[in-house]
């Protein structure tokens, strides 16, 4: 329910700007409204500040360009996530080539730092373990979890976000993937002593 309070005004503002023919204002509303969460998700799933920043720039640009063609078939939020996910896929493909080793080292450095500073306090171990569980997720898995649990999107909406041109995703398949992911994370968490 959390999002309704915040999101509905954004949708309404964007719709009003679009109706007034002010593309500039509409894009700005959409980016400022959905942007913080989307950037957070890009960072969590891509796990590199710079790659996420590039993906976000691409998302903003594509949103800007695509907004005149937005038909309202999906909610604006779902459509924005879809544009963001496409941007993530694009930048991730290129980012890997471009950043390759730097990505590895920053990741490793961070992990090393995590491990170094970890103390005997159980809570911190748990936090670290949660982070490690997260590290083990693919970007797709992280997005699936976040859209479903954090953003409470419907299966149909998530399918809309994750579909790419020529590769539609079925809601039923997503639901199964989600169940498998839950099982996998549960087993991993138990193996690490996070769950009984």
């Amino acid at each position, binding site marked *: 329910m959390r999002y309704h309070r915040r999101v509905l005004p954004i949708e309404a503002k964007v719709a009003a700007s679009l109706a007034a023919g002010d593309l500039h204002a509409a894009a700005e509303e959409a980016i400022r409204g959905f942007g913080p969460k989307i*950037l*957070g998700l890009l960072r969590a799933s891509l796990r590199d500040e710079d790659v996420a920043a590039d993906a976000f720039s691409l998302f903003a640009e594509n949103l800007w360009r695509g907004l005149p063609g937005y038909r309202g078939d999906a909610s604006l939020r779902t459509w924005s996530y879809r*544009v963001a996910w496409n941007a993530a896929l694009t930048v991730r493909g290129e980012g890997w080539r471009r950043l*390759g*080793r730097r990505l*590895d080292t920053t990741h490793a450095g961070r992990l*090393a730092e995590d491990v170094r500073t970890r103390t005997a306090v159980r809570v911190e171990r748990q936090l670290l373990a949660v982070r490690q569980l997260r590290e083990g*997720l693919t970007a797709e898995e992280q997005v699936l979890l976040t859209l479903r649990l954090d953003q409470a999107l419907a299966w149909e909406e998530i399918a809309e976000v994750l579909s790419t041109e020529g590769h539609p995703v079925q809601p039923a398949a997503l639901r199964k993937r989600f169940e498998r992911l839950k099982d996998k994370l549960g087993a991993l968490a138990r193996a690490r002593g996070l769950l009984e």
Partner: protein
Amino acid sequence: MTERTADAGRRASALSRLLAEIASVEEAELPDRFAPGLPAGAAVGRFLVLREIGRGGFGVVYEALDPELARRVALKVLRPGSRVAPRGEEWVRREAEAVARLNHPGIVTLHDFGRADQGAYLVFELLRGETLAERLARGKVPLEEALAIGGAIAAALAHAHRAEVLHRDLKPANVFLCAGGGAKVLDFGVAQLFGRGREASGGTPAYMAPEQRAGGPVDARADLYALGVLLHELLAGPLPPGEAGEAQPGLPRRPRASSPPELRQLVGSLTAAAPDARPSSAGEVEAALGRIAESRAGRGRRGALAGLAALALAALALAGWALFGSRAEPRERLPAVIADGENLTGDPDLDRMGDLLGLLLAPSRRVEPLARGRLDAIARRAGLPPPARLDDAAGRKLARLAGAGVLLVPSARRDGELIRVTLKAVSPDDGRTLFAIEEQARGKPALPAALDRLMTATRARLRERKEDLRDTPTRLARMATGDLTAFRHYLEGLDCAEHPSGGALMTALARCGPHFDQAIALDPEFALAHYQLATLLGAEGAVPAEVRAHMAAALSGADRLSRRDATLIRAFQAHVEGRDDLAEAAYDQLVAAAPDDREALYQAGDVRFHRGELAGAIPFFQKALSLQPGAEWPLEHLMECYAVTGRNRELSAMAKELRALPSTPERSRLLVRALAWLGEPRQAVEQARRAVAEERGPAAEADLCTALLAAGELAEAEAVARRRSDFAAPGGRAWLTLISVLMAEGRDREASRLLVELPRRVDGLSPVLVPFFKAALATGAGDPAALWRESARVVQLVQAGVGADRSLLIAPAVQLALRGEPARAREVSSLLPAGTTGRAEAEALLRWRSGDAVGAAAALVALESTDPWPEQALAPAYLLAEVHASQGEWREAAAAVRRYQRLWPRGFVRSWVGPRALYLSALAHARLGDRATARAETARLLGLLDRADRGLPLLGDARRLQRELRHRG
């Protein structure tokens, strides 16, 4: 029952909480450019903000008033706190000057720049109209308008490129369509704000050329790529969201039916993945667009063509005058193609006059001879086979394709005692002879001086400035050698090193070294030949003293060489001395100066490769290969870069390509390795068998043996190792391979016996190798006393300088840290250079041994990410498996073993380590409760150790684990 339900409920809600925690994503603060801008009336320096008119990657653009000059301006403010702000001021100082140099109607004018509280700012002329992005969003652009816009952008780019300013971020949002007509390019040079290290971010993914995306060096051709994407959009409409980053090279996907085919072809070549496949200059694109526009306009008014033709002729005449009329502007380069020429003297030393003259032109600051490799690449791109011989006609065709300004055709003939050499300069466009120069030499010894005179005169006729001719004189004897026969041998050596490997037994050194030897025999001061021989020797791991001797000879002549050749020699010397940072900087400089210099590209990649900077090396090897597809050394290194950095998609593509190319021993070996890295050990073994059948030789045999090791087929690996054809060869490589295989099989006694006999059986065996291998044996057997004894012997011999280099200390140091006494390990590891993988590994292991397993694991994880496949040390993944296993972190241990097993076995990495790693994996799976895997791995391990010495500790461990699994199961 109730209790159980409650318990289940608790567990479910604990899982839900955990999942919610993983799913929860914090809102991120948006980049500054999305934050509210300055209000109207705000003062920025002396300017007053009137309204916001746009936002870019680095700041906000306002319409502002300049009260002093009473004019409206566009004010671009780099926002403090934005990612680029820290570099902003530096850019404003250094780059604004470059941008201000541009003065062209197609480029927005920069009026001023400065700094205010709100950040560094730039002041541009205020334009009225809309950006091309906005125009595209409104709908399709008529073809004529598209051609005009494209032409205007190309003209602007041509101007900027001549002033050596790259755009790097050309896109519709940076093209402004003025209300009064005409298009202007915005943000020139702004992308340079991001600096070299972040060049990739300087662009926008959809418009970035592949090399720019890859973070490699870029030149004007990256801007041409962006122009291609932009033209594509003009033809086909804006890229849809989500596809904007995926502009594919080649023709537009949805070309407008009415688009002229030549326009689609132009877009295709502009967006070619390989920079070389793109047009060579923006001017060429402008001209092409102009031609297309004219031909369309001409359909309606044929009569105008006559006028146009007259205009074209006038332009040609003007170009002809410009070519050799007065002196050129400084830095105005003239690309030239040099034909192979005609040798009628009967002297084979003059068969390669084209190459000879190309070398003589290298120091010219005006004439830029286009290297043969680049011309070959251009020919391939145009669908032509690279000509075996570059005669007059082929030269003209390639010169036109390459956008060269002149074709130089040499010839030589004998007239009694006289040798006459002639150089004809030909216009590539119409074949007119622009001028011809002849020089004579009385007898061959006088020929080098005649060639010098010929080239000096040619440079002068091609408008080289007098001061440049004086500063960079043409002197063949100084720049290379005064002995033309020595020079011929040298060229043959270069050819040899570049072409796919031939015969069965021959390494590059064995095949190509003799050419350089012959050159040096004729002219002992021939610096370039010494240098080439040193690089070959270095690549084959020759005794350092031999490399140093040739480098000393090369260095003593370096001052006489062209700057490029001297830099190559000094850089390689820095590498030989272990100063790779200097070497890298020097190679980078060469690449920046000449992005098509294959040798500089290869060396720039190679020095990174051997420093473990594999991702950084990739663009250099890719570029080198784009200039000479199939070149073996870059290909081999690129394969390993892809493999080690996990770029399996690229690796698969390369394997496919290798299968498609005609088989050579080197390619076949590469394919074996690529398959092994791709996790296809069976296929790798099959390929290796084929290679041995085709080209029976030690290299192929060694690869088959290694492929079998990788596939865990130890018995057959031993059989192959025993059948090798080079047991008699000096150095004892075949013996050492056999010993490694025996160690992997746990047959330490036989390995030990062979080691003792080795000095008697093998000539030229480095005496260090015996204790070196014995130390490895002692590590596998878990015998710390023997490990120390043999390691101490290695240290003693290395310190005494008995034909061995210090890298042989790495393995003993790491092994001591793993299994020996920590104090001894510290002693040996302190002898290793700081910052090397081996030393870092030894230090990490010592931390582990002193109880800090967490710190050790962290250090090893970091090491694995930077150097997962060290040349001399043990694989960090294996060491991580040991550390994790000691802490009962079984999942991590098993994962580390999997990562280790992916590595192509090198050195003795798979000797005792392979079976030990397999044991750790089996143990980890047993502890994780995956008994099926544990059983299978134990059975496999016992199979490998089938013929192992009784009493081998690992055998005992494996049997105990097998019993335990049987007992519990």
